[in-house]
């Protein structure tokens, strides 16, 4: 089976600050990957490379065996949707107008939305339970509603792979569970997901693999049970030894499965 997205020997640096070295990884259809690592370890960079908005310094990113360099961004955006952490809109767009932007890669220069565009938007809003919010102003939504509207925009792109940048940030525990349910639902729809995650306890059950990033080592991959061990995390996150017991509490869920 061909991977949806494959990183082959990818390195990337911002100026002289190198964030990714020789990264090899792949995600296949219907897979759910959690990207875990300390701040500044390159989680968002990895997502941007997969979305084609950053281009690797060395190596290549492949979308279904075609290198992203050879594809137009419009084509990439029809297969891969990137849902950013924060969206700031200076105007009061309704949720419907916001989600409509997800159809941009499909629209021609002249001529507006077609029936297929409306259908895709409707489907996206129904899946994310934002159909009832469609006439609300995006900027006035609560954190949880906003998160769902952002995912709806991504789904309006009808992607095979959804990239979620810290989807749980600023959400209360109830909304975090809602987001987890939504990711499960998307997996059922046949959409693969890569999400950068901080809350390790939420990975259990939903994500099939963990990509563990660290500032001074190559990325490690494995199942949640393999990766979310106190001794592994302690190294990756540079946790002070006196807090080791807290890490153990965080990863207890995985203990029983090993």
């Amino acid at each position, binding site marked *: 089976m061909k991977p949806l997205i494959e990183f082959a020997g990818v390195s990337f640096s911002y100026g002289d600050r190198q964030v990714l070295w020789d990264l090899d990884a792949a995600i296949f259809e219907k897979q759910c990957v959690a990207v875990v690592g300390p701040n500044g370890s390159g989680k968002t960079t990895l997502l941007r490379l997969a979305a084609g908005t950053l281009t690797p310094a060395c190596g290549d990113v492949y979308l279904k065996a075609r290198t992203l360099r050879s594809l137009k961004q419009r084509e990439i*955006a029809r297969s891969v949707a990137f849902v950013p952490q924060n*969206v*700031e809109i*200076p105007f009061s767009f309704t949720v*419907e107008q916001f989600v409509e932007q997800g159809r*941009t890669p499909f629209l021609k220069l*002249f001529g507006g939305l077609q029936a297929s565009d409306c259908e895709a938007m*409707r489907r996206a809003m129904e899946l994310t339970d934002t159909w009832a919010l*469609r*006439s609300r102003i995006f900027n006035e939504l609560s954190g949880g509603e906003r998160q769902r509207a952002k995912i709806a925009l991504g789904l309006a792109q009808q992607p095979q792979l959804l990239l979620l940048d810290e989807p749980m940030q600023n959400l209360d525990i109830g909304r975090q569970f809602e987001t987890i349910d939504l990711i499960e639902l998307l997996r059922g729809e046949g959409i693969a997901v890569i999400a950068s995650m901080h809350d390790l306890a939420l990975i259990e059950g939903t994500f099939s693999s963990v990509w563990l990033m660290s500032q001074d080592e190559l990325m490690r991959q494995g199942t949640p049970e393999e990766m979310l061990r106190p001794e592994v995390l302690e190294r990756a996150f540079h946790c002070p030894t006196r807090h080791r017991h807290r890490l153990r509490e965080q990863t207890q869920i995985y203990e029983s499965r090993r």
Partner: protein
Amino acid sequence: MAVEVTETHTGFVYGRARDRRQRWLLAILSVAVAVAVLVASGLGAVHLPVSQVARSMMGGGALSADQRVILFTIRLPRIVAALLVGSALSVSGLLFQGLFRNPLADPYVIGSSGGAVLGASLGVFLLPAVSLAGFGATALLAFAGALGSITLVYWLANVDGRTPVVALLLAGFAVSAMLSYSSYFLEVLDRNFGMGMRVLTSWLHGTIAQPTWTQLGIVAGMLAIGLAGSMPLARNLNTLALGEEYATHLGLSVQRIRISAIAIGSILTAAAVALGGLIGFAGLIVPHILRMALGPDHVRLLPATALAGALFLLVADTAARTAIAPAELPVGVLTAFIGGPFFLYLLRKTKHEAML
């Protein structure tokens, strides 16, 4: 703002309600423009009855020869000029607001008008040949000036793809002041005091002078180019509102959109300045009021902005030339009276929305 939303599962009711609202608004605005043109044709030192003006425009002959001269060589050119200037200013305001992702952008505030005035004055003062070449050359130089200043302001105010209000206003103010005063400096260099200086003064005050039909034709052409270019751009500006990175991800060429918006906005600014000089805030007020009625979708806003801008400036200019008759107020003074406080109110409101 209450917008009727009826529950149905067949489509986007909200969008349709807005479409209906847009069509109504366009119809009302068209009628209002027509009425305003008739009324404004009648007003002035010599009163012309509206019914006869209407008949005369249809080709009838109800007016005397003198009255016809007043109507066709004095009043109507001025009215058409106000319509063109208002439309051009409002649409360029809308484009700049989308480009800067900032509802406070206006061709006057961000220095684009100032650049156009400087460009046009350079022509009038330093290159007598240009004055001979006529109005087309002036408009071209105004375009070059607008293009130069807006590029400078964009470059100065842009921080990582965002233009914070403070940065935009400061850069716009500085560039605008520099350009306007450079135009004053040209006064000193002017050897044959008189003609050039009078032109410059009316530009800096924002007076719609008495245009010829040829001049109106040139400006109408520029406006047509500007409007035609804005149409495919409007949808892109909606997407750009999400931010440059997001827009890039969705497959837009942000660089191309930026260049198009700057070029088209400058054509429109130059069109307005060539006829009316520095008229502030029209590009700010008109799109803002329409946004309250139609929402922020640039595609829906564009035609309504073109019409409402024309109406707004015709009313303002008619008021400016009749309010204290026989003296005449520059229309720029009037729009500053209305627009200044409005701008401050918007600034205050934006501050609350944490745009700074």
